[in-house]
């Protein structure tokens, strides 16, 4: 405990004016793009990645984390104002926030969302600062077998990212792993799938793949089926009265935030599940005199928003301490760190303690600043929702192209980006998830290096060697469970359907 308090006290020393400015820009950008249906924090973080190439590691994380936090909250504002969640995470918020707006309580609903998000974010920041270093300390004792097993665990949770079909999630994850093998073999230096191209010798890079799979494919999806601007969006403003909820409903804030952090730590589950789970947990505690859940209950708004914002800090814990990105946006953040030459994982706590502390600091400050900034931007969101879609799509295309080109100054990067844009579009049309590709690609080099090192250390007796590594065995049992879980889930729901129809 004294270490934790000391760590908290020393965080402010790591933050300069530049980092404060970047976290503010990130939050503001995140809130606005999070409010735009079809854009969301993922696209925002991806668009910002090329800019971070020119920054120091802490500033780059300040910008990206700001967008992540702001974007996770921004969706709630469009859910309240126009009844359309800007992000999937805000779908549970919509259930009560929009009915509140229809009853003339839009400002109160938007303010409750802001308070809930800030509360969840700060709670998750404190848990992150307390737990991540402890987990990293344990992980420092891991050898290649444990690291490979944890990476495998991260990969098997990809099934959870594929709604309805874990097989497709795993297939796409393996596709990401395969993409990471293109280039020179890391052990022998043999060329793999390069066709004699010097460009491919160094392997594919993350940015063109990311921007293509998420940015360009999203543009193509929206060009095919345009989303209308919300000309009828009515105005909202901050409501001071909503602050009374902190005294009237403190348990809901705490319970929902803790739920969000816990779900965030578990790889592959994410904000949507967290917000609905937290919403469900809040239902039995409806206050006397409040409307029913789904009809404008303030506790529904708080539960959903506190939980989905708390996921952000929880999701950073396995990424920073174990190098497991359990969430697609966190995988992008991990890519942003790797672009700076820093590989997340336990070694980062030893080799770059300043960066780790800097990330903690910007995360905590970002979560706290969400409250004042969110209240300011409640008004601005209506203007953003009125922007015509074509101007947003043109801006996304421009930033994608220029940002990708500016990093390497290679036209082939643009070609790869456009190719992955087309691949992402086709996969999404066929209902295949693209997020696992990114996680597989990011985890690929870590998994390959440690998997092959384990084989070399075992000197041919792979199973015998694993038997001497209890942590690896425990993680591998976790892998088996993660593989089996979706099938058990499918069987249970099928049985339930059968018994209902009977």
């Amino acid at each position, binding site marked *: 405990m004294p270490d934790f308090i000391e760590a908290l006290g020393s965080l402010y020393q790591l933050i300069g004016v530049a980092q404060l400015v970047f976290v503010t820009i990130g939050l503001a950008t995140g809130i606005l793009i999070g409010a735009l249906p079809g854009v969301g924090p993922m696209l925002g973080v991806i668009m910002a990645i090329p800019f971070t190439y020119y920054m120091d590691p802490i500033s780059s994380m300040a910008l990206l984390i700001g967008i992540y936090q702001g974007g996770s909250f921004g969706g709630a504002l469009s859910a309240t104002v126009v009844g359309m969640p800007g992000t999937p995470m805000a779908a549970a918020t919509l259930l009560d926030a929009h009915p509140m707006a229809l009853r003339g309580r839009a400002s109160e609903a938007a303010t409750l969302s802001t308070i809930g998000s800030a509360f969840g974010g700060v709670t998750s920041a404190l848990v992150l600062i307390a737990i991540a270093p402890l987990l990293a300390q344990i992980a420092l004792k891991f050898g290649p077998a444990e690291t490979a097993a944890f990476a495998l665990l991260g990969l098997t949770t990809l099934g959870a990212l594929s709604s309805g079909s874990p097989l497709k999630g795993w297939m796409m994850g393996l596709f990401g792993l395969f993409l990471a093998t293109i280039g020179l073999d890391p052990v*022998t230096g043999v060329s*793999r799938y390069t066709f004699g191209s010097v460009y491919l010798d160094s392997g594919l890079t993350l940015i063109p793949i990311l921007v293509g799979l998420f940015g360009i494919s999203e543009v193509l999806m929206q060009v095919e089926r345009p989303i209308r601007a919300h000309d009828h969006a009515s105005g909202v403003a901050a409501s001071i009265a909503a602050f009374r909820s902190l005294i009237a409903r403190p348990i809901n804030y705490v319970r929902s935030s803790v739920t969000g952090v816990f779900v965030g730590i578990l790889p592959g589950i994410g904000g949507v599940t967290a917000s609905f789970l937290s919403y469900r947990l809040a239902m039995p505690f409806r206050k006397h005199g409040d409307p029913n859940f789904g009809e404008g209950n303030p506790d529904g708004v708080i539960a959903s928003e506190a939980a989905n914002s708390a996921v952000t800090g929880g999701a950073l814990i396995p990424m920073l301490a174990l190098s497991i990105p359990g969430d697609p946006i966190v995988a992008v953040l991990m890519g942003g760190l790797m672009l700076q030459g820093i590989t997340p994982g336990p070694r980062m706590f030893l080799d770059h303690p300043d960066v780790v502390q800097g990330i903690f600091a910007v995360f905590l400050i970002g979560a706290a600043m969400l409250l004042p900034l969110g209240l300011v931007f409640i008004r601005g969101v209506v203007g953003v929702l009125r922007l015509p879609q074509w101007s947003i799509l043109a*801006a996304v295309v421009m930033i994608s*192209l220029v940002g990708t080109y500016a990093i390497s100054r290679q036209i082939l990067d643009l070609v790869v980006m456009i190719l992955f844009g087309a691949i992402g579009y086709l996969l999404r049309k066929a209902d*295949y998830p693209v997020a696992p590709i990114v996680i597989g690609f990011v985890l690929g080099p870590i998994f390959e290096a440690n998997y092959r090192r384990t084989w070399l250390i075992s000197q041919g007796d792979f199973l015998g060697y694993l038997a001497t590594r209890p942590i690896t065995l425990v993680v591998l049992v976790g892998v088996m469970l993660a593989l089996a879980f979706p099938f058990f889930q499918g069987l249970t729901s099928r049985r339930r359907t059968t018994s209902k129809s009977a």
Partner: protein
Amino acid sequence: MTARAERIAALVIAALALVGLYLTSRIDLSLTSNLNVLTGPRGYPGLILGGILILALIVAARPGSFPAIGSASSETIDQHRGGRLRVGLVLAALVLFALAFEPLGYILAMPPLLVAIAMLSGAQRWQSAALVSVLMALICLLAFRFGLDTVLPEGVLGIDLIL
């Protein structure tokens, strides 16, 4: 439609995995020695491609519901066709941009692309699309040139000399 597309995609992925396995077998091992079959330059990607192939075949073979072709109304089919045509045109515009970016330069290549994207994604008047596109392209140029100290392709105009 989705179940059908899902199965077609699975078959395409399976075919690509087979091509990948063939390419894996062609990886040159003449400069390496004493490699374990599961960990060498061929073994590891071979395992991954094998996994993709198996999963793709399972997805392609599992039962699904397939709506009859022609069940959609002619209006819906026209909308789909129009949407796909726009997607094709956007992709073509992006490829053209990639080809023209360095020879023509940023100033000449970017605004026409943005106008094309704007018109294909629902802009009603080309004048407003052109105005917004030129403004956005200029702001982006200034942000990269002065904010990030990055020179974008000058092309035939040699714009960086002016800036």
